């Protein structure tokens, strides 16, 4: 283990010694993340895995610029991040589509905000809906789509803006096992086309290994930090269901799980105690 990439100035995302604290209603502060250093190279797919409530999503919000750290620095392609991260696309865990817009309008809006002409934005949105397999669903409103279909629309909504960095917060969490696998393969297909830097948060270790180049393990909160950084030596292109049969996959899974299990147990003990 410990194969952390060397910090280069061209890293897509570089968090250095980041602390995140939340003020509590009762006064005082809760340190969610402490002294965390994490880099994602350009074109690299990194998964963050950790027990529930360890501040994985918090790290994503930091990288997105939605939250600013109490200490430490955040660099995006070598320059310090001060406001929203304009180079990143963010796929949220919860439903984030605009319920009053159709699937097509939801996808097109990402371009319309950037002053693309509406007709062109619509045409490109249509092409994206076809790419995510929803060509015939453009005029449906989000509530008329299934959970998996909504995630596809969300993926198209983010990717149509062609962000250099993709932040994903347990995007397939609420989906059933089969749909997750299909969505995972779809994501890998789309990613292979132009290799964006991806920061993918999940609590599913198998999913993390199957998708990514590196798996980063976080300790249980509070004051969560990175405790492990593993390279995934599996060849690409991958098929999620096939890669899970690879002996190398099992070996890696066993090693990482050994470390993760201790943290998960710690995490449970804390939630029950607090």
């Amino acid at each position, binding site marked *: 283990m410990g194969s952390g990439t060397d910090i280069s100035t061209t890293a897509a995302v570089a968090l250095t010694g980041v602390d995140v604290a939340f003020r509590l209603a009762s006064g005082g502060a809760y340190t969610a993340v402490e002294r965390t250093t994490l880099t994602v190279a350009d074109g690299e797919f990194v998964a963050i895995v950790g027990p529930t409530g360890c501040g994985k999503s918090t790290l994503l919000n930091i990288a*997105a610029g*939605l939250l600013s750290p109490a200490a430490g620095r955040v660099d995006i392609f070598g320059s310090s991040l001060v406001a*929203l991260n*304009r180079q*990143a*696309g*963010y796929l*949220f865990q*919860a*439903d*984030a*589509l*605009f*319920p*009053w*817009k*159709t699937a097509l309008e939801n996808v097109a*809006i*990402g371009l319309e*905000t*950037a002053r693309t002409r509406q007709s062109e934005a619509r045409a490109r949105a249509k092409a994206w809906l076809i790419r995510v397999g929803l060509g015939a669903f453009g005029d449906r*409103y*989000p*509530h008329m789509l*299934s*959970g998996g279909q909504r995630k596809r629309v969300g993926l198209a*909504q*983010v990717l149509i*803006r062609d962000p250099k960095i993709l932040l994903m917060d347990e995007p397939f969490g609420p989906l059933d096992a089969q749909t997750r696998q299909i969505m995972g393969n779809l994501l890998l297909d789309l990613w292979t086309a132009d290799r964006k830097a991806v920061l993918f948060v999940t609590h599913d270790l198998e999913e993390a290994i199957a998708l990514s180049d590196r798996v980063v393990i976080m300790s249980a909160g509070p004051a969560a930090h990175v405790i492990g950084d593993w390279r995934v030596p599996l060849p690409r292109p991958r098929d999620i269901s096939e890669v899970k049969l690879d002996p190398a996959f099992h070996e890696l899974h066993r090693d990482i799980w050994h470390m993760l299990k201790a943290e998960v147990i710690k995490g449970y003990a804390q939630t029950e105690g607090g």
Partner: protein
Amino acid sequence: MSRVQLIFLQILVAIVAVALWYALATYPMFGTILLPPFFFSNPVDVAAQIVTWFISGVIWKHLWVTLWESILAFLIGSVSGVLVGFWFARQPRVAAVFDPYVKMINALPRVVLAPIFTLWLGLGIWSKVALGVTLVFFIVFFNVYQGVKEVSPTVLANARMLGMSERQLMRHVYWPSALSWMFSSLHTSVGFAVVGAVVGEYLGAAAGLGYLIQQAEGVFDVAGVFAGMFVLAAFVIVIDAVVSMIEKRLLVWRPQTGEARL
């Protein structure tokens, strides 16, 4: 229950009710008439009164006045409710300062304002419109305020990440959310616009359904009072149907209640 069956039963309820009314107001039971015609009139007289109104055409003028007052009250109340609701939701300080006064005025039974409005605005339509506005405004205001405040934080964060400017957020996120809340209260606010108009007319007017009922009552014309009530009920049902139609077109994106959601 099938649709035909349902309609049949609904009509049956009306027939039974009217028949009972007629019977109890006409035939003595155990030596007395249970519904003395002086207080309860009877269906035949009431129907005759309604027919006379429509044949002579008197009713149209009153219906028109009440309709016009309701529409004006609804429009003015809604527009001001939307504007103020938006303003308060986006400026929490303003909202905090005005909060006790908003609550105070809203707690006031609006009927007591009617004499003041009559004094200020006269016996014409505007005093009724003003009364309706005070009712409609608060419903729309509270809904829009809620709608803007309760935009899902995830949707908002998503909008920001998609590069929306403050103006685009207004147009694509806050505005549709506020409107959806406003439309969800459309039935209530339209209903209150009519209530404001009719109550205003009842308390002092020269025309309108409320005036018609009040006039009939003044001369103990119970048939006239009942006839006025029936016309008013039909009027409200028609308006409500129109609102339902508008609502259906505007809120296509919303799941029907009871529809399965994933």
